[in-house]
């Protein structure tokens, strides 16, 4: 099982607007593939973390990890 936390406005891209989704583990699953499934573009993401560590979008995910996704931000 992989837990994905959609932070801030990103939750609005997931049907029903939950901020947490559980996905069944599949080998070679990446954050990029999860984004595609949710209709999010990579440009939407400002920061992706896997178990609290910054991660790139193409790194294969292990079973049991928690992915946190934050929206892009730059310039207030």
């Amino acid at each position, binding site marked *: 099982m992989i837990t994905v936390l959609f932070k*801030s*406005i990103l939750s609005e891209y997931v049907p029903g607007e939950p901020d947490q989704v559980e996905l069944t583990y599949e080998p070679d699953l990446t954050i990029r593939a999860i984004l595609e499934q949710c209709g999010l573009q990579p440009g*939407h993401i*400002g920061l992706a973390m896997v178990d609290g560590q910054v991660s790139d*979008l193409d790194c294969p995910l292990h079973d049991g990890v928690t992915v946190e996704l*934050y929206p*892009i931000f*730059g*310039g*207030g």
Partner: protein
Amino acid sequence: MSFNGKILKVDLTSSEVKVEEQPESFYRRYQGGHGIGLYYLLKESKHDVDALEPENPLIFAPGLLTGLRAPAVPRYVVISKSPLTGALGKSEAGGYWGPELKKAGFDALVITGSSKAPVYLLIRDDKVEIKDAGHLWGSETGPVQEKLREELGDKGTQVVQIGPAGEKGVLYANIVNNLAHFNGRNGLGAVMGSKNLKAIAVRGSGKLKAKNEERLKEIFRWTAGQVKEHPLSSMLHKHGTPAGIKTVNAQGGLPTNNFELGVFEGAEELASEDYSLKPKGCYACPVVCKRVVEVNEDDIVVDKMYGGPEYETLAALGSNCGIGDLKVVAKVNEICNRNTLDTITLGMTISFAMKCFEEGIIGPDDTDGMELKFGNKDVLIPLVEKIIKREGIGDLLALGSKKAAEKFGPESKKYLVESKGQEAPMHDPRVKTGLGLQYALSINGADHWFAQHDPFFAAEDGFGVIEMAGLGLTEAVDPLDTGMAKVRLIYYTSVLNSVYDLLGVCVFGYVARSLIPLNFLLDQVVAATGWKTSWFELMKAGERAMAMAREFNRRQGLEQEADKLSESFYRPLAKGPFAGKITLKEEDLNDAVEKYYALAGWNKSGGVSRNKLEELGLGWLVQ
């Protein structure tokens, strides 16, 4: 056309009012905004003028597109010499005042001299009067706007004004229109106060007519239809800039305790939308992203009339002072807006004093007995009130952190976080190095909109790379890179942002921060003016305005030595994902600054080369 061909000039010493006419060729060269502002600043100011002398001009200039019914182009600039930095003072605001000045028939307002007694300026189309403001002096912004509209019998009058902080000469006092849109930085409210000019009330009955109204309408309709679809504009519309707090905190770059830590445990509360009402907007802008906050509780009441704290304010007065109480930060924001204080410099000056207090450099004897410790929210409101009134410690802190450090002693200087004497905004260059280049190079002191921000260019499928490939920015650039790829990114986008300022563009409406693409912006310039123009010509105009700004600074004695960062940024962060890591080195940053000069055609001392000035049609600046 989107311009009137007329510049209004008012001398407050002699009470003389003049109108100068300019041909179309002037607008093609200087466009609007800071292009026109700098033209008059360079023509009309003495080389060694003091910012608070009557001879220092104060110029208000809307952008070339401002006043049209076009999306997210409401901006005007205020240009002068900054009393905070001694460098160029340049600060942009949206809202409603700039469009109204254009509708009154003027493309800029140049104010010189100083009145003996408080006055306000009343502009009703071509009727311009200097009026007594004795009854308004000392009043906060809300009551002043109300009184003026009542006296003039016209609720549509647009008022730009200073509050008591500007009157008292707080060196980071700002200027506000419509109570919630600020020319926020560089202390230009103190310049207005030094002229005894309380407000400028404008009403225009004219209408700017674009050459091709139909194309403008199409782009407006497209924008209105896309605002809630595009992820960036929809985030701005629904959640405003405060939504950024969580991302920046998770990245480890949220300025906390005077930029010592990159994460703050109170970030969630600061980002809360508990007190937010429906957002407000600016003239003819469908994005509608300005925050409005109201608090009605036993201990704190915050009036929604003054807007609400945006990302910069939440971080500057919140995390950066170790304060996570949203109600207190919202209240201080309201006090600042009533009195016209720059919340960034204010927060940074307070956090600097807190750091000096914690390090024992200053003590309760220096602070009127106040415990200036990070997280002590009880001192915030009384301290800000002292600064506005310039009482006790407030009189010193009213000068900003760099001047306060002179008094606190040499030990304190290592805790400064500024460039050219202006305190850094709420983006940490140790997490995105492009901001380091921006702070060092910005002509008006540390500024976070000198260029575009690194995160949009961090991946090849990032919004910045997709949207700006047409400018030649086709590659991803690592947020921590300091080599040529980063210099090119900052150079190209600093010229782009200069173009945005010429046109009156709001960065929250256009790429890379928002939705409207560059080809639509070019179409709007063509539609507005009828010119057969191109991005090449616009970028040259952007370069021209930057060259004029650089030349103004050179005349103030500011060259390469001024293009530096505070040593604080070369120390590692003490907490968060970047804790203990050196991510920005002084030699790399200085090398990047030199590379930028080379790309810009500036010489090794940072001055604009003679050839570059002549190429840009600025031969009149060659000595």
